[in-house]
């Protein structure tokens, strides 16, 4: 095939990008080389629109061992233990083929983690679907859930937490973000930087097939009506092979034969070999005839661009080949020496004794395009004026029931019951709480993890939304008694070529950066997914934040269920009555405009740290952060979980009762304390300048405000638990 500008455009490259390639090579690339460039220079691999802005994120901290730039981030949790973690999107493939798209998303992120020598110990996910009424939503949801379960369950890694959202902006572009945590010894972390000349380059895992060719390029473009034609670009997962690959890799890693290791994820053999060479400032020579192939007559182009799953590339020490091969033979996996490291600093590929590619590595990586895209700044929307008469006409209990059964608030048990969340025998907080928690096997420590996003807030004001979502993650970790350590982010946005969408991206990233810097909650890994749009319509800006925290003594973990009748319930953090962009405003008042609640980072940090102190002193019986649906929704959830009720007293404030109970002011938690400890707790809160209101006392079985305003917990429970199951069984 003759390569010209049109062929380059068909590969998703722009005219000037093609010109730059020709200039860098001082010739026109052949088709294999063009394929390699298109794979390395697409948005998904090159971060060409986002790099400039991502640089501004805080990535360092006392506990950070490895920040962005490796397969995953790594943080220190003491005693020579470290946690490797990352979140990644698999949005486009999941919309085209939900089961395989979601499954391979989970498989891919686990590979990123065990590539670094860590055994995966927990999976999480953040999934976003279109309106429940949209004709595709139900099947997409079912397919995605089956796919996540199908892969994670087979791998034997518990899925401990997640988030599921519905919003019509995802009608044509669902989001599937998968996160994995792995445990590794600090002195046994593996990296992808190749080193040394003439070291054997080894291919292990599944054979290479024709699946997923151009997957990364597909994920870097918008959808249109021809979407069904893209099915062949979706990879097919084989969790069984990945389980074998995991065990084989960890067995090999126990020795000292690996110099560098990199999984073949997006853009397969192309990006893995180039990244290893680039980081090591080396060249790599590969004989493509030696690559194990699933199908006959695969071309160099297809071999280099295949995104077949469950494959790894390893640079080994000389002389360790046989020892390594034995391990992969034991696990029935392919093992092939396909090339070697060279000093050429070029990627040189041979096929049938012919050189089919000869590209300087730096042209693919350092010289890849970087754009300073135009973007538009968002204004803070004006506050809505809410008529008090309107509020007073509403019945609190009816509103509460409606909110509890809202698709975005209701219990997601139908989903997480399909995920094995208890395998590995260390899950001490299951899905459905503020964070999932797993013990660090054989120790007193536990790691908490949560994944959050607040697309509505980000859409209303990206800067505030970006800050808010980091704070939400911070709060979810603190609510279970964990000290927040670091975050990973998955930035899901529309087209960077659209000024509005690009503006949303830039300002969300700015917000994330500000909050994570202030809270000492650095970003250590992540990915960017642009072009989440069908035709011209982009999704709501949806950065997903995966946070992790440490509980030093897991016996001190906190759960959200109310524990004991007669205990006192407080809300800490101030309630100002911010209704705009709340679930109440959007779904009950049907008002979609207005600013999101303000984020005060000083208060956020102070309140969070004070709560951790109270937990450390064993004063807290249960805790839950206040988020969607405000105080009363949080309290109702704690009641439902604990099978207890509460007598509520509204503090004497100037704001309306409805505003008090349903406002979504930030930086608040509900806590349960015993009567005996109330004084001590109040003193500590006062001393730390943390505002608190006493909300009420726990009772047997009803949420009680006054004789006219009360409801049994069983009734609230059925509102909360029935919606999803009913929806899926219809």
């Amino acid at each position, binding site marked *: 095939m003759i390569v010209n500008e049109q062929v380059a455009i068909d590969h998703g490259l722009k005219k000037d990008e093609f010109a730059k390639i020709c200039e860098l090579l001082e010739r026109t690339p052949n088709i294999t080389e063009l394929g390699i460039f298109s794979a390395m220079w697409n948005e998904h691999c090159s971060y060409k629109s986002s790099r400039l802005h991502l640089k501004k994120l805080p990535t360092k901290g006392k506990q950070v061992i490895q920040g962005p730039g490796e397969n995953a981030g790594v943080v220190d949790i003491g005693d020579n233990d470290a946690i490797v973690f990352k979140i990644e999107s698999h949005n486009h493939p999941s919309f085209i083929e939900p089961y395989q798209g979601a499954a391979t998303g989970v498989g891919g992120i686990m590979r990123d983690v065990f590539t670094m020598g860590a055994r995966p110990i927990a999976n999480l996910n953040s999934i976003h679907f279109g309106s429940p009424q949209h004709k595709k939503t139900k099947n997409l949801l079912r397919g995605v859930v*089956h796919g996540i*379960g*199908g892969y994670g369950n*087979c791998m*034997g890694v518990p899925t401990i937490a997640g988030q599921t959202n519905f919003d019509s902006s995802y009608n044509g572009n669902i989001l599937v973000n998968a996160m994995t945590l792995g445990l590794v010894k600090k002195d046994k972390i593996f990296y992808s930087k190749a080193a040394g000349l003439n070291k054997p380059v080894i291919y292990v895992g599944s054979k290479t097939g024709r699946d997923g060719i151009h997957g990364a390029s597909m994920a870097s473009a918008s959808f249109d009506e021809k979407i069904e034609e893209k099915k062949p670009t979706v990879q097919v997962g084989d969790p*069984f092979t990945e389980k074998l690959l995991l065990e084989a890799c960890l067995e090999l890693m126990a020795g000292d034969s690996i110099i560098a290791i990199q999984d073949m994820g997006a853009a397969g053999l192309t990006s893995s070999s180039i990244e290893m060479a680039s980081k090591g400032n080396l060249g790599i020579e590969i004989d493509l005839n030696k690559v194990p192939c699933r199908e006959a007559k695969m071309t160099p182009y297809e071999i280099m661009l295949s995104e077949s799953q469950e494959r790894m590339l390893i640079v080994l020490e000389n002389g360790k080949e046989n020892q390594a091969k034995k391990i992969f033979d034991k696990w029935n996996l392919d093992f092939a020496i396909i090339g070697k490291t060279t000093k050429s600093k070029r990627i040189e590929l041979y096929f049938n004794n012919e050189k089919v590619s000869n590209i300087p590595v730096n042209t693919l990586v350092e010289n890849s395009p970087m754009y300073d895209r135009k973007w538009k700044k968002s204004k803070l929307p004006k506050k809505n004026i809410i008529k008090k008469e309107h509020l007073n006409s509403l019945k609190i209990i009816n509103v509460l029931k409606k909110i509890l059964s809202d698709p975005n608030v209701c219990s997601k048990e139908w989903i997480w019951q*399909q*995920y094995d969340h208890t395998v590995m*025998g260390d899950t001490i907080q299951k899905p459905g709480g503020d964070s999932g928690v797993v013990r660090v096997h054989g120790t007193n420590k536990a790691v908490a993890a949560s994944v959050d996003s607040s697309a509505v807030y980000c859409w209303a004001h990206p800067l505030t939304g970006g800050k808010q979502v980091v704070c939400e993650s911070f709060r979810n970790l603190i609510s279970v008694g964990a000290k927040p350590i670091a975050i990973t982010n998955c930035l899901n946005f529309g087209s960077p070529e659209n000024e509005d969408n690009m503006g949303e991206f830039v300002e969300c990233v700015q917000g994330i950066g500000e909050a994570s810097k202030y809270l000492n909650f650095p970003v250590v890994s992540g990915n960017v997914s642009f072009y989440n749009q069908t035709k011209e319509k982009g999704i709501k800006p949806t950065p997903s934040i995966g946070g992790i925290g440490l509980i030093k003594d897991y016996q001190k973990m906190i759960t959200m269920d109310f524990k004991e009748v007669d205990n006192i319930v407080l809300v800490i953090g101030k309630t100002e009555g911010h209704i705009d962009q709340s679930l109440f405003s959007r779904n009950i008042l049907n008002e979609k405009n207005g600013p999101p609640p303000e984020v005060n980072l000083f208060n956020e940090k102070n309140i969070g740290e004070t709560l951790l102190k109270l937990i450390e002193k064993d004063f807290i019986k249960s805790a839950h952060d206040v988020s969607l649906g405000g105080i009363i929704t949080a309290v109702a959830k704690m009641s439902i979980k604990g099978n207890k009720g509460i007598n509520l007293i509204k503090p004497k404030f100037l704001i309306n009762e409805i505003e008090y109970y349903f406002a979504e002011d930030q930086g608040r938690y509900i806590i349960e304390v015993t009567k005996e400890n109330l004084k001590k707790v109040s003193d500590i809160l006062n001393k730390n300048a943390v505002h608190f209101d006493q909300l009420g006392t726990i009772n047997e079985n009803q949420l009680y405000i006054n004789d006219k305003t009360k409801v049994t917990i069983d009734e609230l429970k059925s509102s909360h638990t029935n919606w999803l199951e009913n929806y899926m069984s219809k």
Partner: protein
Amino acid sequence: MKSSVITFPGSNCDRDMDVALKKFGFKNKMVWHDDVELPKSDLVVLPGGFSYGDYLRCGSMASKSKIMTSVINFANSGGMVMGICNGFQILVETGLVPGVLLRNKYLEFICKNVFVKINNKKNTYFKNINKVLEFHIAHNEGNYFCTKDQLKEIEDNEQVAINYCDKDGKTEEQFNPNGSIKNIAGIFNKEKNVLGMMPHPERMIDHSLSGEDGSLFFNNLINNLK
């Protein structure tokens, strides 16, 4: 007491079982599926997981593994063999216990706590346990099925080990999580030395986990073996 846990390619509860057995006093050995000889054991466990990916009928590939010849001989000579979840599926495939395990009734993987009622206490596994047990299930193919004639034979021989029930031991259909015939959660061979069951006692061995009835089960088991 000596125990052996067999690891098949795709087993993923092998470590959990190892941890549990050791916690309650067994000297446990992990045995690779490709080995021929079984170490001297008082108990052999086939753990949960997805042996060979369960791409064929669950457990069918594993039932033909090299080590299984020794496991079958061991069982036939009266040795204690317990299959949990995928291990139960493997046992069914070897024919050591009767019946088959179909896909769950609602076609979905289920991971949750369940209650089980012990149907037969005259055996080493459940002797001296006098309560309804809270166990944990995590499976996609746990829907126990057999023919009418088989069922009659199973019941006549008192081979039903445990049934799904509520916390008070009521074995009604509404407490059946997966559609199993007669709420069957576990089955013995005729001699009661081989037990296959879907629930995972090894996930219930600590008050911080889903519950502690697994501790009760293992403590009782090792005492009965002594």
